């Protein structure tokens, strides 16, 4: 499933849809909120579900080459966050669902 397909299927709010979202494949779901754990553990091509919606999340997503970031639990995501996601070319989706439920939706769509 591509990032774009998941964005459409899930109905999650799109904070940023990267230009390559139609080509990048989601290979698995990954959940973690602590950045220095995620830094070594985010699998390449993961849809990373987290409640940490700040620019540091984006830095780690970019360095680990996550397929996309899913901000769960309706965590606050401001304009600066959206701008940075756009600048870095990272797809970011937003949902009120809890972390597990959002990740399960990714998993079931694989």
């Amino acid at each position, binding site marked *: 499933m591509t990032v774009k397909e998941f964005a459409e299927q899930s109905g999650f709010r799109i904070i940023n849809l990267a230009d390559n979202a139609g080509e990048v494949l989601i290979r698995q779901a990954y959940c973690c909120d602590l950045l*220095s754990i995620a830094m070594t553990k985010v699998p390449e091509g993961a849809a990373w579900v*987290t409640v940490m919606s700040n620019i*540091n999340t984006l830095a780690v997503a*970019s*360095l680990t080459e996550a397929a996309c970031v899913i901000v769960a639990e309706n965590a606050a995501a401001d304009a600066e966050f959206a701008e940075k996601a756009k600048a870095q070319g990272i797809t970011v989706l937003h949902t009120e669902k809890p972390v597990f439920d959002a990740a399960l939706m990714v998993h079931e769509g694989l």
Partner: protein
Amino acid sequence: MSDTIKLQYTVSTDDFTRAGEASGDVKRKLKKMGSAPEVVRKVAIAMYEGEINMVIHANGGTIDVEITPEEILMVLQDSGPGIADVEKAMQAGYSTAPDRVRALGFGAGMGLPNMKQYSDEMEIETTIGVGTKVTMKVFQT
């Protein structure tokens, strides 16, 4: 040596808006130069954690990177408070991160252990009240 690439980055105080940019830049350059994916990953992790520590715990600093066909040398220098007990700081889970940065997702106490694990050589020189210098190497082969 002609095939040595030298890079320098300034990491500014509490500048979360740019934190990760230096490591991101080095990662891109290594990829372009055709370094092995595992080497690129090791450098990205080790340097990112060091860069972030300079922002969170010291008052920023400078990072010098030297890339040769044999290795990537990273020297991170700050004039922050220094580390009182390096052995303790190296322990997984040990963190003095203040609440305001914990709220951003930092403070697992995994940064230094990651740097140790993902670099091939690492040395910390630190003096209380003067600063900290972290030297890391990742071998290309």
